[in-house]
């Protein structure tokens, strides 16, 4: 049954151009990476996200680099600036009774609460789901944590490295004679944040249809074990009884497969399947390889990788990455340039699609940011707003929305609540 039309009440308290999630109100009690990426997705597509930070220093990501000009400063963290675009920022001390009371006022009017404290912390603050659901029964409350809200690892401490090791990917990443390798950056946390955004929005459809919200428990470890790649690794074992191995870059089997040097950089070639051998040979302009005994059959080929590379590497060394990729793609041989970050920013394709965006921020000025992971043509992109400075929207939210007077806000500030 297709869903029907629903006329949204106009409740934006600030006039903004209509976007996909324009009438969704989110209270954001997250910090570091996974939670803020979840709420960034909601904010970037138009939800009104109010990020609640501790008055003393705020989100821990503000203390993490890279900083503009390498100057550690809570308003100059590139990580924080990236993860918190389009949000409003308020400060609130939840260790005070008054602070908890104000928080409940925010939750009363929200559709969604996302939090990423250690499991149990919300309960200790008196802000567990049952308490909040009594105030706002249609609330979707998403809790993102390392291992989930239950289970024997629930209270374990983890960082990106520890989490990576406890999913199925790290063990097979790296060289067979060396230590397993974590993925670069904060991939596990970003992934969990993305899953959380999808699950949260999914749950919102339910709460809007029934008037009943629920809690969404997102575990970073389980994100690593879910479809596609994580689940495939586990299913491979379940079906075959064979555990994974770490094959390394020089894995046995078909080729070309891997990263190869060219005149001015590196190319990745995905050509290890038998079907692609003819394309490879045509691309190289070496039809004689088709009848060469070393390469002629799928059975013989895997034993002669070094011989093949002795032929291909000098050929690649005479050509630029762009020549190599263009000519290979013309033969439907799946190749790509292996870019470093500077090359990504300069690439004509991403430029033509207008992926990167410029955002101006009071402390760091104008800078280029990664843009939206997809654009919705029905709601043309409006200018992106920078991440909030600490407490930037206190007056907006506490004054305009909750109706606190200037005098009350001065008092709250004096008591260290905001």
């Amino acid at each position, binding site marked *: 049954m297709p869903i029907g039309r629903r006329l949204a009440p106009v409740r934006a308290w600030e006039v903004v151009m209509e976007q996909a999630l324009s009438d969704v109100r989110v209270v954001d009690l997250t910090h570091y990476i996974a939670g803020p990426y979840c709420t960034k997705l909601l904010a970037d597509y138009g939800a009104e996200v109010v990020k609640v930070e501790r008055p003393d220093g705020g989100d821990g990501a503000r203390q993490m680099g890279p900083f503009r000009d390498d100057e550690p400063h809570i308003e100059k963290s*590139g990580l924080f600036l990236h993860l918190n675009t389009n949000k409003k920022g308020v400060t609130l001390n939840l260790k005070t009774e008054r602070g908890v009371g104000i928080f409940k006022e925010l939750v009363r009017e929200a559709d969604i609460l996302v939090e990423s404290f250690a499991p149990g912390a919300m309960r200790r603050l008196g802000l567990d789901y049952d308490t909040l659901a009594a105030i706002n029964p249609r609330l979707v409350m998403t809790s993102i944590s390392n291992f989930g809200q239950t289970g024997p690892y629930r209270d374990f401490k983890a960082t990106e*490295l520890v989490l990576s090791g406890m999913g199925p990917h790290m063990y097979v990443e790296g060289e067979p004679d060396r230590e397993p390798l974590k993925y670069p950056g904060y*991939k596990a946390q970003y992934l969990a944040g*993305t899953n959380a955004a999808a699950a949260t929005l999914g749950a919102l459809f339910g709460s809007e249809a029934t008037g009943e919200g629920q809690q969404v428990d997102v575990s970073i470890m389980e994100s690593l074990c879910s479809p*596609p790649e994580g689940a495939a690794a586990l299913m491979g074992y379940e079906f075959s009884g064979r555990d994974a191995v770490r094959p390394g870059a020089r894995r046995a089997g078909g080729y070309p497969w891997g990263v190869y040097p060219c005149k001015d950089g590196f190319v990745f070639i995905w050509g290890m399947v038998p079907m692609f051998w003819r394309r490879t040979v045509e691309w190289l302009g070496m039809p004689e390889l088709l009848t060469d005994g070393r390469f002629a059959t799928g059975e013989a080929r895997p034993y002669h990788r070094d011989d093949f590379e002795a032929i291909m590497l000098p050929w690649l060394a005479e050509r630029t990455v762009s020549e190599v990729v263009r000519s290979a793609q013309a033969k439907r041989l799946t190749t790509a340039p292996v870019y470093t970050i500077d090359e990504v*920013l300069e690439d004509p394709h991403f430029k033509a699609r207008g992926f990167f965006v410029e955002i101006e921020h009071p402390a760091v000025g104008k800078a280029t940011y990664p843009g939206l992971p997809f654009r919705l043509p029905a709601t043309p992109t409006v200018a992106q707003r920078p991440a909030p400075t600490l407490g930037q929207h206190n007056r907006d939210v506490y004054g305009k929305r909750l109706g606190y007077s200037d005098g009350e806000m001065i008092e709250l500030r004096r008591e260290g609540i905001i």
Partner: protein
Amino acid sequence: MGRLPLAGIRVLSHGFVYTGTAAATMLGDMGCEVIRVESIQRFPSWTRGSMARPPREVARHFGYADNEAGERPWERFYSFHATNRNQYGITLDLGRSEGVELYRSLVRISDVVLENFAPGVMERLGIGYAALEEVKPEIVMVSASGLGATGPYKDYSMFGPNVEAIAGMMALRGYPDDDMTVRNPAPVWSDNIAASTLAFAVLAALYYRQRTGKGQHVDLSQAETVLPHMGEAIMDYTLNGRVARPMGNRDPLMAPHGCYRCRGDDRWVTIAVPSDEQWRALCKAMGSPAWSEEERFYEVAGRLAHQNELDERIGEWTIERDRHEIMQLLQKLGVPAGPVLTPADLCSDPHLQERGFFREVTHRETGTHRYPGMSFKFSRTPADIRIPPNCLGEHNEYVYGGLLGLSGEEIAELERQQLIGDTYLPEVL
């Protein structure tokens, strides 16, 4: 059990390999009625195996259920089972106008069309957005190709590793001391990102439609879903002009921070020390050896400067011990540490067991197995695997008969014409 939040939303999925299939699965997990569209004329390579009927010696190495390809290998392939569930499966020959006509009837009763073919494939089949919009103006269509449907590289053929390469991720997947050619392109990470972002994109567009009644066509580039997950590296370049290099298992702010060999065959533990206090706790756990008391290790700056030495010393301690014991010992002291788990470890992991992560599912062709569950838990309307990974054309009768109202005779006629069926045609490789 309550009604799942996305119940009543119907999705036609052309999910291919990992990204589209896993996104459709996530939508199915949350209650969408997903109809997976396949055909008996075309074998989807890498989705249901490498070939429809692989030679026996190939099949043995490829993760078929019980290491047997059997009579219907496409029903036994591990990654299909991992990434397809909670979807109905139909077949339809979209290469013939009768097939396209039937497809249009399906679009009329659906809310979403999701696909991750190369740009242009759907148009060539006559079911691009313009054609579907004519049939159903409010349809939401999301296309998730490697690089998007516009721009100079729109026709490039891309798999996950290619996406990672062009997005700057592959260059960072290495040890700090190796060179660019030592990059292991598998397992692929970009599919994970693209799949969940694709599911989110479908819901964002649906939410907009729910408010305004308007559909749209979203052109999603998998590479562009990966780039925001590399935000800190991109910002370091745009703010400071610094080009990120591989850090391996190290961290800019923490030391020690590494992966250490333990007792056993290729067994490892990770240890991360975020603070000086946790450093002292780690020293205590190691029995406070004399070297650990040295002043140059007291503070993080000194530890960062002497990481190689620290790693060697810690490795001498871990090699004597079991990785799980180390985790328990260090976690008791509040030091982040965990074993590096293999798929076999995870399949019997006590934490995942207690959380009920694995779901027991019985499949018509492969019997009963434990399947990885979801990355999220709903408290009021728990998600489960309601529909096992679909067999080819398994739900033709439900969809063509139950939903479109075709008679048994009409369905039999479709079968006779080979517009639908449950077995790849003999000539399909």
